[in-house]
């Protein structure tokens, strides 16, 4: 936390690295066309991680039940599609809106307490929704999951194909658009206020900022984005399972975000990519060992690699510029 770099005002200009980052998916499409399904999964989970980054990395609310909103979005979109409303974009929007509504209601319970209470309330809300979806099998399909969705063409032109090409571009486009919105939010005065909440929760009220209202807003927005990610998963895979609401999903999401680095927008995306690619290779070998390595990785990140991959890179760059100016 030293140096003038950390404390400068937000600067919304696009950096070269960011532009390169967003060109990567286009390269991937042509180079690794066998992995399109995995790549679109990464986009979706990355979007989900972005939503957690908003409330955890920026506003500092520790949530152990973020999958609740992902699941709400997924079931909303899934139910719409399986009952004849197959138009993707409106389904996506509705998924986001319903999740945001649930998040809005939940936020009043979450923002009341501090760390442990927040943790428990988010965990409890997640578990409650999981149980509800489990017991309401007549609507959600319960353990068997929800299937039998018929999706219309995206924008009335592109039909979802077996190779996942449309799903790839569709997920990427949604991710990019939502990312733009979130990026703009984070660099706005409101975003600056969120950082203020995180680093100085006692000083914010002193300068006349309402902590409560900001937390409610950011939690609602985060839930909405998570809902869009869930809806995206439902539409592209045309299946919604109970696991979309599970505690494991919330925990894994947190792992990805921390692995990539919190409070950096790109952390969730990078973390999701690393995590999913590693899972794709390692989990095939042995799912039990995979869990062990993930656990070890988590312990190591917390102990030694604070800030995750992006945090490490930033520290490295800072050190290099310092040496250069010497």
């Amino acid at each position: 936390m030293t140096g003038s770099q950390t404390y400068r005002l937000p600067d919304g200009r696009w950096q070269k690295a960011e532009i390169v980052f967003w060109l990567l998916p286009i390269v991937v499409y042509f180079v690794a066309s066998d992995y399109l399904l995995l790549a679109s999964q990464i986009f979706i989970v990355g979007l989900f991680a972005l939503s957690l980054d908003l409330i955890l990395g920026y506003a500092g609310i520790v949530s152990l039940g973020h999958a609740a909103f992902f699941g709400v979005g997924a079931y909303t979109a899934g139910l719409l599609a399986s009952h004849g409303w197959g138009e993707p974009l409106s389904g996506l929007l509705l998924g986001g809106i319903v999740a945001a509504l649930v998040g809005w209601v939940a936020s009043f319970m979450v923002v009341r307490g501090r760390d442990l209470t927040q943790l428990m309330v988010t965990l409890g809300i997640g578990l409650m929704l999981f149980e509800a979806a489990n017991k309401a099998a007549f609507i959600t399909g319960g353990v068997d999951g929800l299937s039998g969705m018929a999706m219309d063409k995206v924008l009335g032109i592109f039909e979802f194909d077996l190779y996942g090409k449309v799903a790839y571009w569709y997920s990427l486009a949604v991710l990019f658009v939502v990312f733009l919105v979130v990026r703009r939010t984070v660099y706005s005065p409101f975003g600056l206020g969120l950082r203020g909440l995180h680093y100085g929760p006692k000083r914010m009220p002193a300068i006349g900022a309402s902590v409560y209202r900001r937390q409610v807003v950011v939690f609602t927005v985060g839930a909405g984005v998570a809902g869009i990610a869930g809806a995206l998963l439902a539409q592209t895979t045309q299946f919604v399972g109970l696991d979309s609401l599970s505690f494991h999903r919330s925990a894994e999401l947190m792992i990805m975000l921390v692995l990539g680095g919190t409070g950096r927008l790109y952390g969730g995306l990078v973390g999701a990519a690393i995590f999913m690619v590693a899972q794709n290779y390692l989990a095939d070998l042995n799912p039990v060992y995979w869990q062990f390595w993930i656990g070890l990785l988590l312990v190591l990140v917390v102990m030694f690699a604070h800030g995750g991959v992006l945090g490490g890179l930033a520290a490295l760059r800072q050190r290099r510029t310092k040496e250069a100016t010497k």
Partner: protein
Amino acid sequence: MIGNFLGVLFDGIAYGSLLFLIGIGLSVTMGLMNFVNLAHGAFAAMGGYVCVTAMNQLGVPFLATLPVAFIATALMGVVLERTLYQRLYKATPLDQVLFSIGLTFMAVAGMTYVWGPTQQPVRLPEFLTGQVHLLGLDLGVYRLFLIVIVVFVTAALVYLVDRTRFGAQVRASVDNQQASAGLGINVNRVFALTFALGSGLAGLGGGLGIDVLGLDPSFPFKYMVYFLLVVAVGGAGSIKGTLVAALVLGIFDVAGKYYAPQIGAFVIYALMVVLLVLFPAGLYGKKA
């Protein structure tokens, strides 16, 4: 009808006693060190596995395995506390949560590797099985045994905390670490011993609970919510609060599953959210 209700109440109290036994260690670590230790269930599971292994591989009788489970998990606790946990006392809750989730993942994978993914069988001795007829009620002997043990453990804990020198040191450290250290209390040693005691009690609870809670590698995650619940509702660091919360949750859980199986676990989660919203610092907690 009334007898039925009393039976549910009795089972609930027995279940709550177990939750108390396992949860108390978590409550103390949270109250004393402000450490959100999600891996606490893993200590309980370890205790269970120690019991099962001693019983089935070495032929130790069930009752004799319980102290072994206590000592083994307490030792494990103190080693982990000195090597890993103590580095994170000053860390943010997020780091603590992530660290302990990581530890739990590793424990679950390790247990699956060593003992396999299936439920572990436990053979209770003859005199602890069956039922007794008491005051017009048929009560499970083992559940009665659980309650008796927990009454003894609670009495011992209250004595330890309220009457002994070590207890005074613990209370002082909970109230104000800096001042206690200034008065010459070796706070680090108090932390380590308390952590060991808490882990040991969790191990004991895990061993005792095999028959009631079951034992398989998913144990730490399956019951994590319940232990956290007991602590969050009771208020971290309070023996009385933890006991009350454990009994209330135990009774509501058993009653919920008995009278309204369709909504099952829903009762307990709803109760938790309501209680937490009403009492953000727990029933008997320090002011947050």
